[in-house]
Structures are given as C-alpha cells and as structure tokens.
C-alpha cells in the first residue's frame, strides 16, 4: 500500500449467534463453516479479514452470494458490531467509539449506497438527497442548494420535486447516490448498488460512477458479485469466499497470478485482452524505437491489430515517454492462453 491510508481493517471477525468464542476457536482449529454451525449454531460471517484502503482508492470486494460481503461492509460501517478486530478510519478506531462519536463520524465522514436503494418514499427526491444535511441541522436553504447541485451532477435535474417511486430503478439509485454524495463524505460504501438494475442501466451507472470518481476522488469500498464490474471499477479487488479473503490484488494480478482455483474460476470468464495492459506482457529492455510504440497502460486488445500486422517488436513507453521494454507475439499469446 502506497500513500495515505484512509481506512484500515484489522483482523475483523463477525460471528452470528450466542457462542462466538467457541466458533472462533473451532475455525482456528480448521473447522469449516458448516461444522461450526452444526456444533455451535453460530454462523461465521466474516473470518479474520484485514485490508487497507488508500485515500482516493476504489477497493472492490467480490464474492458469491452468502460469502459474507454484506456482513463485512456492515462491520466496517458498524451497522453490525464486530465480534473482534478493529476498524480504523482516518486514525480513529470506529469499533471503540461511543454511539455519539459514531454518529458524528457518520454525519461527516461516511455514506452508504444500498442494494435496494433504501430511499424514503414519503420524501421528495430533493428531501431524500438532503436527508444527511437535515440530520446535521443544516438550514433549509443551504441544504436544498447543495442537494440541487448534487442532483444535477448525477443527472436528475428536473426531478427534484418527484417522489422516488415515480422514478425508474436506475434513477432511484441515482437518488441513492446523490443522497450519499450530498454530505460530501470522505469514504463511500456501496453494497451491491447496481445488482437490482438491468444490465444496460447497470453499465450506465458504472460509467457514471467512474466519471464522478474522476472529479471527486473519494475513497470507495464497493461490494459486488459481478467480476466484470469489479474489474471495471476497482483499483484493487478482494475475492471473498466463506467469510475470508482468498486474494487481494489489481485486476491484472488476479488474472495473471490467481492465488487459488476459486479465483481462477472467475478470471476464466473474463476477456483478458480487454483487461490486461501492456505492462502484463512487457519484456523490460532498452533499444532503438522503430516507430511502433504503445503506452504502458494500453490494453492488449489495443495492440492486437499492430501485432498481427507485423511480427517485429513493438516498443513500450511509460507515461513520461521513456521506453521501458518491448512486447511480442509470444508474450501476448502466452498471456491470453485460456487455461493458465
């Protein structure tokens, strides 16, 4: 992890049930979730998870249904109390805070966007968006002004006076997004925010989020069960299984060096040429450029035509224009090989 750490999650456990100690003990001695449930009646939701999220980073947690993603994000935001472990936001230990302190942090530093939107049907769009400010006690004129601005940013200009249920699903989630952004939080939590939307709208919303993030540069923890979505949005991705992380890394790392078979299962389905960049197939070296150059962060897909055209080397430049190496057909073919 480079740079400034915003959120730090340290050895978080969450066990549902009345005998968490026994459950943790059993897991420590190698018992599976089912065995623990059988023996203690407890469900292990999150099993010893640790990670850091840098300021401005988008950290995606990906896993199948029941893997504990929601439980994790709810522990991090303290909608659930952790069974053990710590969650530190900006140097403050969230898990040790009193209700009052937590309330202050929630008012000013964090927001959440929910899978089923969690909008308030009795409030107009603008009052939904301004809810966080209202709770903080911001006066009416100011909160309407700020909410109006954010609604415009998320593309809801003109809908301020409608009620949420008069909007389509995609637009409702835009309201959810606006509501989260209006308080200008440092960190945003997304729990499968686009899962309830149909595929085209989901793609629109992903693009919208990428666009917003370019200007906002917020710290984001994003939950999804869709690997393609994870790759599209995440700076780093954690693959979660049975309450624990199997692997954490960039999309390229997950694809090129999957730590477990489970991780590889997901990467199989992914069109690698679209995800991997030149960096993944680079042979470091210096030489005389022959006029055929690509950038380090170009996708492999982008250089395929040139490679197929002509078998000679293609030189790779970094963002400052310095030559850092070459790519050739063999390297690309190896990277794209289906079963690695």
């Amino acid at each position, binding site marked *: 992890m480079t740079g400034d750490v915003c959120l730090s999650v340290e050895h978080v456990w969450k066990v549902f049930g009345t005998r968490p100690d026994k459950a943790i003990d059993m897991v420590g001695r190698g018992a599976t979730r089912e065995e623990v449930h059988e023996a203690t009646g407890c469900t292990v939701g999150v099993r010893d998870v640790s990670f850091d999220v840098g300021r401005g980073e988008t950290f995606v947690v990906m896993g199948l249904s029941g893997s504990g993603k929601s439980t994790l994000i709810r522990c991090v*935001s303290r*909608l659930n109390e952790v069974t053990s472990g710590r969650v530190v936001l900006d140097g403050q230990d969230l898990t040790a805070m009193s209700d009052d302190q*937590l*309330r*202050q*942090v*929630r*008012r*000013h530093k*964090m*927001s*959440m966007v*929910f899978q*089923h*939107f*969690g*909008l*308030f*049907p*009795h*409030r107009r769009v603008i009052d939904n968006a301004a*809810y*966080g400010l*209202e*709770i*903080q006690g911001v006066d009416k004129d100011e909160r309407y002004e700020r909410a109006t601005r954010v609604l415009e940013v998320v593309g809801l200009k003109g809908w301020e006076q*409608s*009620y949420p*249920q*008069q909007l389509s699903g995609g637009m409702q989630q835009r309201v959810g997004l606006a*509501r989260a952004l209006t*308080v200008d939080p440092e960190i945003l939590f997304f729990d499968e925010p686009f899962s309830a939307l149909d595929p085209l709208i989901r793609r629109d919303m992903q693009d919208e989020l990428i666009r917003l993030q370019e200007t906002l540069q917020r710290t984001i923890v994003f939950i999804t069960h869709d690997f393609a979505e994870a790759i599209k949005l995440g700076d780093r991705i954690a693959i979660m299984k049975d309450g624990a992380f199997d692997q954490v890394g960039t999309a390229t790392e997950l694809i090129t060096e999957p730590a477990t078979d489970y991780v590889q299962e997901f990467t199989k389905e992914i069109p690698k040429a679209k995800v991997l960049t030149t960096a993944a197939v680079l042979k470091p070296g210096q030489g005389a450029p022959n006029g055929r150059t690509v950038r380090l962060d170009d996708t492999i897909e982008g250089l395929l035509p040139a490679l197929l055209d002509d078998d000679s080397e293609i030189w790779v430049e970094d963002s400052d224009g310095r030559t850092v190496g070459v790519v050739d057909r063999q390297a690309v073919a190896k990277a794209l090989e289906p079963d690695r």
Partner: protein
Amino acid sequence: MTDVLQPTDVALVKEETRRSRFGWWWLALVAGVILLQFLVTSTAVPPLWDTVISGPIDQFATWARENRQIHPIFTSFFIPFSAAVDWGLTTIESFLKWLPWFVLPLVVFLVIFRTGNWKMATVAALAMVYPGLVGLWDTTMETLSLMAIAVLIALAIGIPLGVLSARRPSVERLIRPVLDAMQTIPAPVYFIPVVLFFGIRRVPATIATVIYSLPPAVRLTTLGIQGVPHQSVEASDMFGSTPRQTLFKVQLPMAMPTIMTGINQTIMMALGIVVLATLLGAGGLGQEVLEALSQRRTGRGLAAGLAIVAVAMVLDRVGRSLAFADRTRPASRRYVITSLLLVAGAIVVGRAMGWATFPEVWEVSVFDPVDTAVRWGRDNLSFITRPVNDFIVAGLLIPVRDFLTLTVAWPVLMLVTGFICWRLKGVGLAIFSVFALLLVGLIGMWALSLETLTQVLAAVVISVAIAIPVGIWAGRNRRVDAVLAPILDALQTIPSFVFIIPVILLFTVGQVPGIIAAVLYAIVPGIRITALGIRQVPEESIEASQTFGATPRQTMFGVRIPLAAPTIIAAVNQVIMMVLAMVIIAGLVGGGALGFETVRAVTRGETGLGFEVGIAIVVMAIILDRLTNAWAVRLQPPTPSH
C-alpha cells in the same frame, strides 16, 4: 444420499401414531362420559363460592360509594382525573355546539374532496346534515364529543405504546396477550369495573370507550413501524441520525398509512361502544334509541338509529380519505389555504348571523308515518315473523338448552370441553378450560352461562349456514361479489347496537331479536372472510385439478374448499366472537341470560354480580376463541419445519 428420515416420513409416522392413539382416547372419552353421567346426577355445578367473589367486591363497591368524596385514592386520583376528562368533554361539546351547524358538513366535504372524489364528499356531507334534519343535532354532538375525547385519549396512550412495543420486544411480549384478551371480550363487560371506580355517567363511559378502542391504535402502530423496511432505517442510521430523528423523520412517516388505518379502526370501535355507553347513562344517540324503543316511538328510534349509521359512515369515509391518500400527490398548499379560509369564513358568518343551532324549521317529522308502517308490519308480517320466531325458540333454543341444562351432568360437559381443547390445542388450554368452567360454576353462573351458550350456538349455526355458502358463492362469482362488496363494506361500519333496532321493530322483545341481530351482525365478516379464502386459493391448484378432468363440483370440494378451510374457520371464529358480543348486547332488549345480568349489574350498580357475569363471559369468549383459532391452525397445510 444417506438414509436419513425425511421430514415427510417423520410426519407420516407421527400421523400414524396419532391416529391409533386417537381411537383409544375416543373410547376413554365415551367411557368417562357414561361413567360421570351415571355417577353425578346434578346438572349444575353447586355454587359453593357464591359470594367468594361477589361478596368482597360488593363490600368494596359500598365502601367506594361511601368514600368517593373523602378517601385520598378518590380525591387525589379518580376525582381529579374525572374532572379533567369531564372538563375536556364539556369543552369539546360546547365547542361543537358553538360552531355553526354547517361547518361540520363543510369540513367533511373538504377533507374528502381533497382526494378528488366529489361524489363521496357530497354524500358524506349530506349524511352529516342528516341528524340535524331529524332534530338530533345536539344529541349527535354529545355522542361526537364523547367519542372525540375517548379517541384522543386512546391515541395519546395507544400510539406511544405502539411505538414502544415496536422498539422493545420485551414490551411487545408483555402487551400482546393483554391486547389479544381485550379484543375477545364483549364491550359491555368493560363497563363493570369502570363503574366500580368511576361511578356512572359520562366519564366512566369515556373510560370504557378508551379501553375498548385502544387495541387497534397500539397494534397498528406497532405493525406500521415494524413494517418499515429495515434498509430505510439503516440508511437513516448511516447518516448519523439519533434514534429520535429516525423515529420522527423515517419510521413514523413511513408507518403513517398503517397508523391511520389504526386510527380509523379506533374511531369506529369508539363509536360502537359510545352508543352502548347509554347503559352508563352517558346520553347521546344510544340513549335516544333506547328511550324511543321503550316508548314504542318506533319512527324516532329508527331515526336515531339512522343518525348513528350516518355518523359511522361519515367517520369511516373521512378516516379512509386520510389513511389512503396518495402520498405522491399531497394536497396543494392552495387547496389547504382555501379550505381553511372557507371554514373560517363559515364560522364567522355563521356566528355573526346567529346560525349556530340547526334551524328548527328544518326538522322534518317524516317519521310519524314510520310508526304506523312498523306497527302495520308487526301486525301483518307475523305470518313470516311468527314461524321464524317459533323455529328459533322451539327448534333450536329450547332443545339445546334443555339438553345442556337438564340432561347433561356438569362434569360430563367439563370433560368433553377439556377433551376438545386438548385434542385441538393442547394440555394448557384443556387445563385452563376445565378450571375456568369450574370457577364459573362455583360462583353460580353455570345455568346462565349455558343459556347464553345456547343462544350463541343457535346464532352461530344460523350465521354459518348463511355466511359460508354466500361467501363461497361470492368468492367464485365476480358479479355476486361486485354487488355484495359495497353492501358488506357499509354494513361493517355500522355499530353493533344499531342491528338490534330493525329486528326489535318486527319481533318485539325477547331472545329471538337478539339472535337475529347477532346473525345479521355476524354474517357480514363471515361472508367477507369466506369469500376472501376462496379467492385466495392459487389459480395453479385449480388448474392442476382441472387438467385431471375434475368437474367444477370436484374442484370445489376437492381443492377449493380444503385449501380455503383455514380461512373459512377464521371466518367462523369471527362469527362466534361477534355473535357473543351481540348476544350480550341483546341483554338491553330482553335477550336474557348473561346479557341481561350485565345490564342489570351496570344499571343497578350490582358490581359483585357484574364481576361474576364478567368472568363467565370472558371465560366463554376465551375458550371459544382459542378453540376456533386452534382449529384453523390445524387445517393449515403443514409447513416444513427447521
């Protein structure tokens, strides 16, 4: 697969053992019945505890009467409390009478018109004028103010209690059984303890109304708040709301439609008992009805009865227009301001011109001819009413009553009741019912209870014989339903007491009018719930049956009715509870048995007797209610258990 026993296998095995055991228990029951019938010759439990309960209570009542003005309990609590309620009553009443009469209809119109339904608004406003037209304006205002203050108190207690029980499971566990019990007890029973502490007249009537109408306010508030999606509450928490902010900004507003439904029910229940509270000398429309009927001024009784119906209809419509308003289209600010101005203007003009009281000239006396018509009806329709009367008395009441009170030995009755309770529900209810029945007998209420039970059984048999076929018909046939639904809707809002009026006009006093009124009152929910049950049967099950070539008749008896059975039994439960309530109320018009004793206890201040009667009624209500509920649950298709 390992060869674990599947849940269905387990169920089959259990079924098997239950079957075989069932046979043995039946034999044991029959043997027990024969044995007891031979051993015990008495048909009533000896009233050994005749004064065990009534004695101390009567003493206390006497003491209370003598010390009402001096003892600190009264002077520091009951008297100030009564005074406050009385002050509220007087204030509201004089305010309503101070308002020019056309203001209320105007408000009714404006509130309903807000939803855009001008026809309904006009009809309701006219209904609000009606009591004035028949010279009952002031009486109606008395009833309305009694009701208003009772509803205000009920809501002031009920809504916070509902909120509390939604947030604290422990509170809910505590008050749920109390509310359950409160809803099974017939209204007049509430009068008995109230009289003991508050005496008679308007204040105790108010208190009884508050108690009776409290449950829906609590229940629906709890229900509404628990029904708010978890996510909305969490979203609110995530913005750093305090619990209070979440309650007022999210939970209460989102629960509002349900809470409004609760308020509507509270109002309707309050009206139902306020007209009965005439027993406590509370005045108002109920008293008007009773007096008119006892003086044989039938037309006037009918007029007052219709005034109750009109008020019920207006209140229901106003309540619904508030509860089911479309929230995405709130009343425009202009509409609200215009309405307020209109009302204010009406008040100013009305007061300035001295138009406060309903104009005398408008009081039409169309009801004198009604007297004649009813008298004619009573004399000339006897070819119908007489056989009906005779059939009910000679065909149902007398044989059943004689069988219960003259033939069966009392332990046999207890044994059989206990056995049924045990089979349907479990040992707990069986033990409760045996001891409760024993208590009823020991305090000397055995014969009266059996007489009331006889009336209840008769009315239930008739009601079920009408309600279930009609309900099935309505459930099958959209057109029948379309005709019936609005009628049933309207009937359901009418207070129980009103049902007695038309019956008594035709049958004079006695047991039969009470039974017929009970039938009329009870078939409404009976039909509705049955129709609902039939309609709820999944279309797939019907189609599955049809693809096997089942005739409509086979589909009906093989699929529809069995699948609807739990709901139909729920309808029977409702019928029984309403019949019981009505049979007690019929005590007012010569229904006899426990109902009559209740009336006597309340009006003559025989509090000890009142408590004994109350115990008997409550025991009967609880046993009948729990039994039919257990039966309905039993008919439910088994759900897989974890």
